[in-house]
């Protein structure tokens, strides 16, 4: 067992080493404004006292993550200050782009990915080798994570590590720790709260539902733990009387229903239908006002950006997400099994992505990573994951719009598809043939259906049209078309994934 343990650790380190090599090579690639955002947060937390963190407006990139992330940035800023004091300077560090800050920040993301590695290690240590290899390959080499974290620049690997760690404890049956880690994660990034109903129902039913006395005691324990975590996070700000400001920063509902680039979710169809109907009705002679407000801008008083359909408010989206998660909650209530928790959490994040307010396409990582754990459980899961993983990775392409990154993102996606195909084929391959070391092609039960194949081929067509045909034939006209096309096409795939996951949970 010991030898196997060290072999496991070696393997994980190998996977991580390969990924790190690629990540180091990606250091000089395109950086989005998120890079400056995080640099600014390093400066804010380093140069200002705690009471000013959520008030500072030296830079437009104000602190809008919960306090634990601010503490994390404070911790990083200690090292940043040692590397180059200008990084953490509030004024002179603005838009600083010297090699020191680029290397420091990039390497901090790479090092923080160790959290993801640890979460994976804990999650997969009891699985058989092929499943463990596959999950590690799917997560550590996830093209979405590489594109968003190591090119665009964010710390999702670090945060998802906490999530995976929490899931690993739940699967082990250690609910208290699982709940504790989730509470910690919520204080790092509040977006993860979409899965909170699932956690609540599951922990209530699985942990607290054992007799009146024990149950009550456990309920109090877990309540106390969660409150304690939140107290450590928000306590200092409550003390300074700033909690309202913190909440305002964390929930900027001044933004519109959609991001500038529409995330491929349900609202894409809502908007397109609205526009389409308005156009049709206008042609038929009805008087339909062209709305003043836009989808990406904020809520402007009473005016709605929709011409025909009813207005959507943050409350509406909240209600819809809750409604979508309800079947899953009912299942969790009926039969709280540790082995299925990952599936429910992934489903919750899918619902949050599809129906949420101002969703970024980067949020697709929140459900593709947990789904990787589920993907190795059966052939059907594998086929589903193959599709949804490719679609969600492709939907991230518009994040990298410079020519230099084009071959990289295409190659990452192709490589990932190939690794997935090989891995799943090996997992579901003909066992006898593999044992006999056959030299020919080994048959596998893993195969993509006709419908899915044509959808994936369609991705190639969408890419060709949006990248090559549109600029060549139309130039700058209808500049929104390529992005809209990508959004809509990917949204179809994600909706399919949602329905598939729902069916899977209910049966």
């Amino acid at each position, binding site marked *: 067992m010991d030898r196997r343990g060290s*072999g496991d650790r*070696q*393997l994980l380190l*190998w996977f991580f080493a390969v990924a790190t090599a*690629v990540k180091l*090579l*990606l250091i*000089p*690639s395109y950086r989005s404004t998120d890079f400056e955002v995080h640099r600014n947060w390093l400066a804010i937390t380093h140069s200002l006292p705690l009471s000013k963190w959520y008030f500072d407006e030296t830079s437009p990139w104000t602190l809008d993550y919960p306090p634990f992330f601010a503490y994390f940035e404070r911790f990083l800023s200690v090292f940043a200050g040692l590397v180059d004091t200008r990084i953490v300077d509030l004024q002179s560090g603005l838009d600083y782009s010297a090699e020191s800050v680029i290397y420091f920040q990039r390497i901090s993301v790479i090092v923080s990915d160790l959290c993801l590695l640890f979460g994976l290690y804990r999650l997969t240590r*009891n*699985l*058989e*080798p*092929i*499943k463990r*290899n*596959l999950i590690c390959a799917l997560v550590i080499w996830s093209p979405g994570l590489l594109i968003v974290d190591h090119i665009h620049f964010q710390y999702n690997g670090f945060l998802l590590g906490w999530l995976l760690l929490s899931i690993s404890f739940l*699967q*082990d*049956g*250690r609910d208290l720790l699982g709940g504790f880690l989730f509470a910690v994660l919520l204080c790092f990034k509040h977006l993860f709260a979409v899965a909170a109903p699932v956690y609540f129902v599951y922990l209530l*039913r*699985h942990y607290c*539902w*054992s007799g009146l006395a024990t149950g009550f005691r456990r309920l109090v324990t877990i309540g106390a733990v969660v409150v304690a975590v939140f107290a450590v996070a928000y306590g200092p700000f409550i003390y300074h009387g700033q909690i309202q400001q913190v909440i305002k920063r964390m929930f900027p509902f001044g933004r519109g229903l959609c991001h500038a680039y529409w995330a491929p979710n349900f609202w894409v169809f809502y908007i397109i239908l609205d526009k389409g109907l308005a156009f049709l009705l206008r042609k038929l002679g009805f008087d339909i006002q062209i709305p003043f407000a836009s989808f990406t801008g904020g809520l402007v008083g009473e005016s709605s950006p929709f011409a025909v359909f009813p207005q959507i408010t943050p409350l509406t989206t909240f209600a819809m997400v809750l409604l979508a998660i309800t079947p899953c909650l009912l299942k969790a209530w009926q039969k*709280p*099994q*540790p*082995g299925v928790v990952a599936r429910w959490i992934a489903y919750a994040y899918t619902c949050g992505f599809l129906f949420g307010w101002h969703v970024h396409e980067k949020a697709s990582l929140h459900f593709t990573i947990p789904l990787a754990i589920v993907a*190795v*459980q*059966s052939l059907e899961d594998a086929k589903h994951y193959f599709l949804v993983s490719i679609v969600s990775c492709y939907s991230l392409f518009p994040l990298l719009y410079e*020519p*230099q990154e084009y*071959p*990289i993102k295409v*190659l*990452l996606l*192709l*490589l990932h598809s*190939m*690794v997935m195909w*090989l*891995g799943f*084929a*090996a*997992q*579901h*391959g003909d*066992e006898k043939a*593999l*044992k006999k*070391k056959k*030299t*020919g*092609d*080994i048959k596998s039960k893993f195969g993509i259906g006709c419908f899915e194949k044509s959808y994936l081929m369609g991705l190639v067509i969408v890419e060709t049209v949006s990248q090559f045909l549109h600029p060549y034939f139309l130039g700058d006209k209808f500049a929104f078309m390529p992005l809209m096309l990508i959004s809509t096409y990917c949204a179809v795939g994600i909706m399919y994934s949602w329905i598939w996951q729902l069916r899977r949970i209910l049966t």
Partner: protein
Amino acid sequence: MPKKTPVKFAGNDNAAPVSIQSGASIATWWWLSHKGTTTSFLCISLFALLIRSAVSMYPYSGAGTPPKFGDFEARRHWMEITTNLPSIDCLPELHPWIFLRMFNPESVSLLSSCGHESYLGKFLMRWTVLSSDALIFFPVAFSFVLVYHKTRTGSSKSEVAWHIAIFLLNPCLILIDHGHFQYNCISLGHTVGVIAAVLYENEILTCVLFSLALSHKQATFGIPFSVVLYGKSPILAVLKLGVAVIVTFVIVWWPYLHSLDDFLMVLSRLAPFERGIYKDYVANFWCTTSIFIKWKKLFTTLSLKSLSLAATVLASLPSMIQQILANFQM
């Protein structure tokens, strides 16, 4: 009632196949190579191309250092003169200048583009190396590995995959071609092709590829090849090979064969003996021994030329003789 004991992960427990090979690393990666050689090759190629694309993002040699710059500027300048001047004294590389002429003409416009450095120019130049690598080096490496392992029984799929990976993920080639900026992949591809052709026992192809390799970049490993082929076949076959070599050379060198002066001018550019017997920090005999024996002070360039020629031939002599003897014994 749900228990609190740690639960083992309850998934679909279809027994997965036992690892094909015992032993540390190969067993780990068997699932990547189990589908056959072509699939492994595709997978490794994609990864190799990814690494190359990523390395291409880094600065090239001589970036931002006027007036001399480096290899990148040298190549750009060669393209500038090959596209713009009628009679040229260097060997043109066709495909790079097509790209640049089409997409970024100002990077190759005569005289005004000296020291031209731009995002698009760099990107296109990098693309030319990437495409040469993918179109020449990769397929040749694959065909070599295929023919090499055909002659060896008992090579597992994993071993073939490792061999391909060693070829395609060679850090020296990646760093020099895609980082520093050069086109070694073309001449090296041709060289590997020569070896593959020898293994395929296709002698005409061997000669053609060897001539092309020599015409792309002067290589001193021409000597062993000439000897490999020398004792191989009867007179008629040797004549056939000689014709193949001559025809290839004539086709490639055609623009410079019209006058002896042109031809000699090309040769002198290709062999710049006035640069000296060794470069500053190369890891070879002359540079290392120059610590004790000051070659450049003791001898003239002319005598050093003969000295290095003699030394090279003498050093190659044992393997040449062995090749000839082996051929005669066959």
